[in-house]
């Protein structure tokens, strides 16, 4: 190697060491001419994108998914579905703070509303980390409430508890199914509450209406070969009169000091039946009339409405 060469090499390597750091700083460095070009324009920074609408935002609160209108869910108004209203009321009885989200059956892991998504704060024990965010279906809500509420009361071990509960879960529920989905109330209750908000497509709506009707018929046909409105209403009437007798002059059912799950279950039906503005109003008032006349049940409903739903009215 000659000195000339080595000199050239030296200068080359020198110039290289001088130039190298610049491109290696980042390949993203904007070439100078382009940078100059862009410097002439003002830089506009867009605000950060919002989270998707469905992303949970209030992770610190329990969220109850129920049938409700958007506005109703914001205000904490009572749900228009008896099963949802029952658990909504029960959680309120037990001083559990929660937010409401309007939803439908397709959103639920169990296929039926309501379900509750517990807050992230409740995961006190590390082993429960994975389980804490699991949704709680309605069948397990009572147990969950017992574990999470400081003021939760055990249900009374009353002998008649199960029997009276069967009145609600069978006789009154059946009459309710009939009156909402099959009687002329369909157009004023089932339609505006369940079908119209689900879709704007007339064909989807029609299918939904058909499916709802079929489901209600199927449920009723399990218990009798023919759906007879008079018998359904008569049985519901007997049930309501039995419930009124059971309540008697007590404040809450079975002489409890605090309202419990049974009161919530009764309220879920009596409130909706007594609510004049439900949907587009009652057309066929047969079932509603059975409650209107029962003073004690009406008072029971008003007591709960005043104490627990005063702010949402």
């Amino acid at each position, binding site marked *: 190697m000659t000195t000339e060469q080595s000199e050239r090499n030296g200068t080359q390597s020198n110039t290289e060491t001088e130039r190298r750091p610049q491109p290696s700083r980042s390949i993203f460095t904007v070439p100078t001419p382009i940078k100059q070009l862009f410097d002439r324009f003002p830089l506009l920074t867009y605000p950060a994108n919002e989270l998707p609408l469905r992303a949970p935002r209030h992770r610190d609160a329990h969220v109850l998914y129920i049938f409700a209108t958007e506005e109703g869910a914001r205000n904490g108004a009572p749900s228009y579905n008896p099963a949802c209203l029952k658990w909504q009321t029960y959680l309120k009885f037990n001083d559990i703070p929660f937010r409401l989200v309007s939803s439908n059956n397709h959103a639920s892991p169990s296929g039926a509303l309501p379900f509750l998504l517990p807050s992230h704060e409740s995961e006190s024990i590390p082993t429960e980390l994975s389980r804490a965010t699991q949704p709680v279906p309605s069948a397990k809500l009572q147990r969950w409430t017992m574990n999470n509420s400081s003021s939760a009361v055990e249900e009374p071990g009353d*002998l*008649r508890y*199960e*029997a*009276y509960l*069967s*009145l609600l*879960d*069978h*006789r009154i529920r059946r009459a309710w199914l009939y009156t909402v989905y*099959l*009687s*002329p109330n*369909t*157009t*004023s209750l089932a*339609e*505006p509450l369940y*079908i*119209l908000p689900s879709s704007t497509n*007339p*064909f989807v*709506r*029609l299918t939904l*209406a058909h499916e709802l009707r079929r489901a209600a*018929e*199927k449920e*009723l*046909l*399990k*218990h*009798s*070969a*023919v*759906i*007879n*409105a*008079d*018998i359904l209403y008569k*049985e519901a009437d*007997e*049930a309501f*009169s*039995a419930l009124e*007798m*059971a309540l008697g002059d007590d404040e809450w059912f079975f002489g409890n000091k605090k309202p419990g799950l049974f009161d919530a279950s009764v309220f879920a039906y009596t409130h909706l039946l007594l609510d004049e503005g439900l949907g*587009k*109003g009652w*057309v*066929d*008032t*047969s079932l509603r*009339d059975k409650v209107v006349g029962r003073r004690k049940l009406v008072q029971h409903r008003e007591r709960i409405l005043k104490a627990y739903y005063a702010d949402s009215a």
Partner: protein
Amino acid sequence: MVLQLHVWGPAFGLPSIDAECTASVAYFNRIVPQAHWVLVADYDTSISPQNEYPLLIDGSTYVTGFTNIVSHLRNHHSGAYDLDYHLTSEQQTDRTAFVSFLQSAATPLVDLSLYVSSENYSAATSSSYTAILPWYLNYTIPPTRRDLARSRTAHLGLSSLDVSLQRDVAGPGSMSLGSDFEAAKRDAGIPTADTGAQPNMLSMGRGKGLQGFLSSPIYAARFKLDTLTNELLEPLFELLGKKDYLLEGGRPSSLDCLAFGYLATMFYPTLPQAWLKEALQLRYPRLVRYISRLREELLGREDIQAADVWTISSSKTKNEASITDTRNSVGLRLPWHPRSARPLHTTLKRATDEMVSNLPLVAKLLPQDAVIQASNTNISTTIPSSLPSPILMKTLRIFTAAIVGTFTGIAIVHRRNPRDGDLIFWALRPGGGGLGEAGDLLRALAYQLPR
């Protein structure tokens, strides 16, 4: 006036195969003097306005179902046939609640034990139906009732009972010599090497440990069944307490009749899968004593034979004395009566209706709207539906059908009269040489060339 009670025919030594029918018979036998009512073992539900039994025909009034019959008897006949007159109003309320509880909690259990469990169904229930139904209805009524029971218990997730647990016990000769030998050993009561036939301790969980053993379908179902059974029997047991009857007052009420109907249907049948009977015997002996005491008080100690009742109910005689004679000769104490004779053509019509509505494809085509009986008296206004009206839908449907029909027609006509010319010539050309697909390709190319 004579009250007519129509029920499903007798089975398992009880007056009826159906729990509510048995309950109604017990109720009538307890309070209505025997001269004032007749009992008909019937099967044609079309006479009942609700297609169901028990059915009470009181003059021109038709009443269906146990609770409706009881409330009809309470409100008519000036309360003479009211079993519950001694109850206080509070007890009346409790009765209403417990009647509803019984119906809701006991029906699934009876369904599971008699209908859903395939072993029990094939061994006991279907043969009991054979004894009380004419031959042509055996193909329709029991399967229909079984399907209903299935749909009622579907939410319980116990369909595993439905799987036939019986291994095919094939006749001799159909299998190898070894299995013949095993079968002979089994018949002789010698334990065989065929471990799969019965879930015994050796095949326990198939090596999956205790958990695998317990989660095998039959045991998992057993746990669920026990829970269900306890949900019904525990409250009844507590309600009964040390009393003779479910409610205070020292005499049976309509609640006792209904409880007897359900519990007897659970307890008396002899079934291969007798989990209900075992649960009653092992855990609730007091309820068992209660059932047998009620049976004696309400029905008398008699074991009703379906064949005896069948002879009476299908006899043509109208003579009261001869009916009584027949009844006494076979020793039936309940006032069984013959069915009113129905003309042949209605029987034929019913038979065809039943068959047609059960044919797999035809049944789908027939309109199957649920029968809804309603008297709309309380309707103030009507609110028009905001859904597309049925007329619009019908028009749309007809329109679509017309378009589809037209296109199909055109296609058919086109196929029948294909255009003449090259195409036919092309299709009739004899097959190409040895070039196979390549030959076809080449020929197609050659065809493109100008001739």
